[in-house]
């Protein structure tokens, strides 16, 4: 059976599984069944046009439903679906249910998660599509290798689940986590014809089918919770979920270049720690990456941050750095590296029980790129929340953040949660 046929068969089984979940869920015993979800509509306005994207107002809608069923003290199941649409062709229009999140655009219907968990004493095994977050830092997580993201709009990236088997063993003080993922899930990168792809003037890019790797990914993490600190060591062997690009110049005018994504081999050695001190909590996280791919750098990423809550305020501030140990020529889309060599900050203030404001920022140490996001949020009753925000991006074209300087935008979001 070829890959397309396999995918189709797999998709059919998944559709059945999800439908079964949705049908059975409400009949489940009330104390062991929980559900939640929301419907959110967003209106995004860009004050400036971009050379490859004249759209300035975008509407989006997302419906998310998640259900959890505890069959017995040892077994529980989790399932979730996303249904979405938009006005800017960032969402597929083919109405297919997606499992693997490998589509170029966001799928109109996607299995957000679907997993079975067995837990007994100190052992937990989770099988299926699930979210796996590693690391302790809040601003950047270089050790979190099983958490691809949707970077269609680069600075507002949502996490994607991965298909994996995860075994966790341990009690409160020490845990060992082993993850094996047989199906690679890439991060979703900006669409070539849209403003979050920066294309050189006078060049037409033609996107070719990506080279998605076979094989599996493996990771292990040991976590210790002590009285004075928490710390972890982690290891990953697999592929980078952020792509490198192959280019091929076509002998035609106007200048046309074929572009193909591929995903370099990656091995990661990492660690993280959280240390509560007298007046602040210090968190550090670092990872060193090696690769057998000839065009992938070898490098280290690290982040150090402090955080503090005081009254209705919380503050997180820190620095993210990068050290390249082996430079290899290759064009990469790498928001994780793009947010390094930068000062990062996050602050929030709770005005009252219903209202809050938050500020996030990244400022490159050389001053060539700045990203600032300010949001005001207010809830109405038990179900409604409105959010208004503005994201400011400034900088040089040579900088990862600065190249998006025409993409400052305002957001108005309305969410109904249930």
């Amino acid at each position, binding site marked *: 059976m070829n890959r397309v046929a396999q995918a189709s068969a797999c998709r059919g089984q998944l559709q059945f599984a999800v439908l079964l979940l949705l049908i059975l869920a409400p009949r489940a015993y009330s104390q062991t069944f929980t559900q939640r979800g929301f419907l959110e509509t967003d209106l995004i306005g860009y004050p400036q046009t971009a050379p490859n994207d004249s759209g300035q107002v975008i509407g989006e809608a997302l419906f998310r439903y998640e259900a959890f069923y505890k069959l017995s003290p040892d077994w529980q199941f*989790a399932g979730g679906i996303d249904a979405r649409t938009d006005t800017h062709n960032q969402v597929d229009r083919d109405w297919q249910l997606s499992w693997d999140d490998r589509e170029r655009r966001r799928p109109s219907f996607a299995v957000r998660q679907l997993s079975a968990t067995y837990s007994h004493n100190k052992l937990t095994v989770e099988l299926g599509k699930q979210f796996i977050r590693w690391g302790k830092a809040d601003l950047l997580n270089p050790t979190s290798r099983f958490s691809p993201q949707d970077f269609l709009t680069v600075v507002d990236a949502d996490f994607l689940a991965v298909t994996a088997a995860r075994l*966790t063993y341990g009690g*409160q003080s020490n845990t060992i986590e082993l993850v094996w993922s047989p199906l690679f899930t890439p991060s979703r990168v900006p669409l070539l014809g849209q403003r979050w792809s920066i294309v050189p003037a006078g060049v037409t890019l033609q996107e070719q089918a990506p080279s998605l790797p076979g094989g599996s990914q493996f990771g292990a993490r040991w976590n210790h919770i002590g009285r004075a600190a928490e710390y972890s060591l982690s290891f990953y062997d697999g592929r980078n979920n952020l792509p490198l690009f192959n280019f091929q110049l076509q002998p035609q005018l106007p200048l046309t270049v074929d572009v193909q994504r591929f995903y370099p081999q990656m091995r990661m050695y990492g660690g993280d720690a959280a240390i509560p001190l007298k007046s602040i909590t210090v968190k550090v996280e670092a990872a060193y990456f090696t690769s057998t791919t000839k065009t992938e750098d070898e490098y280290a990423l690290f982040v150090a941050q402090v955080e503090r809550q005081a009254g209705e305020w919380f503050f997180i501030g820190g620095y993210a750095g990068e050290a390249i140990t082996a430079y290899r020529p290759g064009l990469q889309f790498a928001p994780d590296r793009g947010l390094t060599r930068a000062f990062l900050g996050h602050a929030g203030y*709770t005005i*009252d029980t219903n209202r809050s404001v938050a500020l996030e920022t990244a400022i490159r140490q050389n001053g060539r790129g700045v990203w600032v996001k300010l949001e005001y949020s207010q809830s109405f009753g038990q179900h409604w929340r409105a959010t208004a925000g503005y994201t400011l991006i400034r900088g040089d074209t040579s900088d990862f953040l600065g190249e998006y300087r025409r993409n400052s935008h305002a957001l108005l979001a309305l969410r109904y*949660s249930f």
Partner: protein
Amino acid sequence: MSKLLPFLCLLALPLPAQDARQIVEESQRRGRAASQHYEGVLEVFGAHNKVSKKSWQSDRLGSYGNSKAVIRFTAPAEVKGVALLVLNHPDRSSDQWMWTPAIGRDRRIAQQDRSTRFFGTDFSFEDLEERDVGQFDFRLLGDETIEGAPCWKIESKPRQSKSSQYTSSRVWIRKDNYVPVQYENFVKDALVRRLRQKEIEKIQGIYTPRLLEMTDLRRDSRTVLKLENVRYEVPMKEDDFTVQALRRQP
């Protein structure tokens, strides 16, 4: 929460000579259970009478100094699943972790952050702890009547001054059933929070307040917590009170 009860379950015997520590120990002894479950409905009344409603489910294993507890929000919808794990210790302040399912992260609540409000309520993280009597010094201040019930009035001060946001607390314990009915918490000489415990009902042999009203006097706001479906001696597993277990719950 009924967890607060133990913390300030300070009391004395109906004998004038009884000392404050004995009263508190007796109060804690009478409230002791291997486990406790309840469903809490909260109403938060802001300074301008803005009201927000929340609800949570609480499970506690053990009592006082060595207990473990998980509080998990069930409403409103946008915070459903947010949970707090509290591991109490006999000789020091608790360890706490908060799990936020929307971002898939757990976060340890540092000691210096315990004075902040717990998820928009008037309870601070520290108020959700249960502490052993051994962590406090007690002094009997006298007798007072609260809502017609004669009470002992007892002052408590943490032995390790930096382990609590409160410089001192006062508790009123009813003489007839050893139930604490009011706490006042001070920072230096200023009264900052007051907790009143009402609608006392005997459940499975344990006198249990069914309504708790916490007032934050600095913010001029209050939270009313109603305890429903209170059960003691519910079978619970030790392994369900770990950070790992916190993550695997929805």
